[in-house]
């Protein structure tokens, strides 16, 4: 049998890799400090174990949260601007139909999801990445309303003002954390995707 030639192909552009890891760090800080802030006045009858939180106490958690928010938003703006301007979003995340998402989700649950070509996201991946983006947009806007309910009252009116924004902020966080956990689980199941997000390259047998 003829040995197959191995090719290195570029999968993830540099901008995507850098913004991905900055985003991962910003989200880690925002979520863990946010949990500490939540604990100061829980919306629901449970608290987040303090061991999982960042900041040590409310003032420390608020410092982390309001420092990392700049990182999250500025990095997010770079990513979204790049994604739209370069056609990255259009090429990688679309087209997307509900039927394709359902089909690929079923396949994924059966463990039959194809990952032969890492440069093409399947429909379940596309939906997950878009959902994370959507959650982050909701988190930023509800966050602005919680941070400045008077100055950003014009935005708050559409989400039940300060108190409504608190619930939405929590809900968007919970959904995003859930998707990120699935995302990490998938990386563990298909580990060669991990170095690819650092080097940008993947082996492709032709």
């Amino acid at each position: 049998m003829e040995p197959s030639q191995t090719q290195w192909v570029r999968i993830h552009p540099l901008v995507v890799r850098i913004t991905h890891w900055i985003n991962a760090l910003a989200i880690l800080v925002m979520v863990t400090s946010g949990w500490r802030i939540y604990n100061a006045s829980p919306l629901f009858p449970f608290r987040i174990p303090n061991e999982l939180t960042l900041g040590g106490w409310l003032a420390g958690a608020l410092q982390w949260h309001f420092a990392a928010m700049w990182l999250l938003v500025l990095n997010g703006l770079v990513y979204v601007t790049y994604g739209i301007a370069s056609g990255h979003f259009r090429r990688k995340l679309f087209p997307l139909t509900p039927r394709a998402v359902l089909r690929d989700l079923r396949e994924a649950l059966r463990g039959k999801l194809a990952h032969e070509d890492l440069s093409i996201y399947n429909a379940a991946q596309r939906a997950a990445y878009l959902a994370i983006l959507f959650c982050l947009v909701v988190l930023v806007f509800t966050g602005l309303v919680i941070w400045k309910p008077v100055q950003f009252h014009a935005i708050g009116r559409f989400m039940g003002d300060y108190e409504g924004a608190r619930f939405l902020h929590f809900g968007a966080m919970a959904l995003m954390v859930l998707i990120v956990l699935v995302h990490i689980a998938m990386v563990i199941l298909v580990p060669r995707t991990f170095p690819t997000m650092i080097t940008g390259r993947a082996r492709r047998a032709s």
Partner: protein
Amino acid sequence: MKKRSMETSLAAQSPKLIRSVERRLFLRQGLSLGALAMLSGCNLTDDESVQRVLEGMSRWNDRAQAWIFSPAKLAPEFPESAITKPFPFNAFYTEDEITVVDGKSYQLELAGLIRDKKPWTLPELYALPQASQITRHICVEGWSAIGKWSGVRFSTFLERIGADTTAKYIGFDCADDYSTSIDMATALHPQTLLTFRFADEILPPKYGFPMKLRIPTKLGFKNPKHIVAMTVTNEYPGGYWEDQGYNWFSGS
């Protein structure tokens, strides 16, 4: 060439092996990252250089908030039916430790960049033009409650005493040893009231008798109660919570 074909043939023969090696490496890296995070996580915030960065960002956020703050933007006001009952008590001590100020001997002391520093008694303060507001009090902890406060517009009072409104800060000292300070733009905001009444009754001790500075454009801890002295100044006065790391501007 030869080496390469060896490598590729190895890859072709045992992709499973390579995958499992990759997986093991990834898991190990993941675990050591997690261990590092756990080791440093508990005292990361206490680290001096981290603390400097966080405090620097907090000062930056003071400037950003001053820039966002609009002197004309009003906090939403509510109907009487929206008032939270009972209105929560909140302080850095418990309800049985509330300071009770004697209204008869009470005087508000004035200091700093003020033309007329004559102290004010309660009857004199009550005689000033009064206004009311029903607004949402938002605590830095996250909870909020709607209440009704009445008193004199703080800008009117500052005008009466001849305060230098080009100064940067106004600092407050309170009978319960609390202190805080605010920026001049917020002090002059039309909804910033020096209040003597809560829900149309003279402020009870638990809500800050004899007076509370009600600022609906700031978080609750920036609304001092039991005020006994105020200073108009250009030197940063800090405050009880601010000195411990809570953001100074804390606008809403």
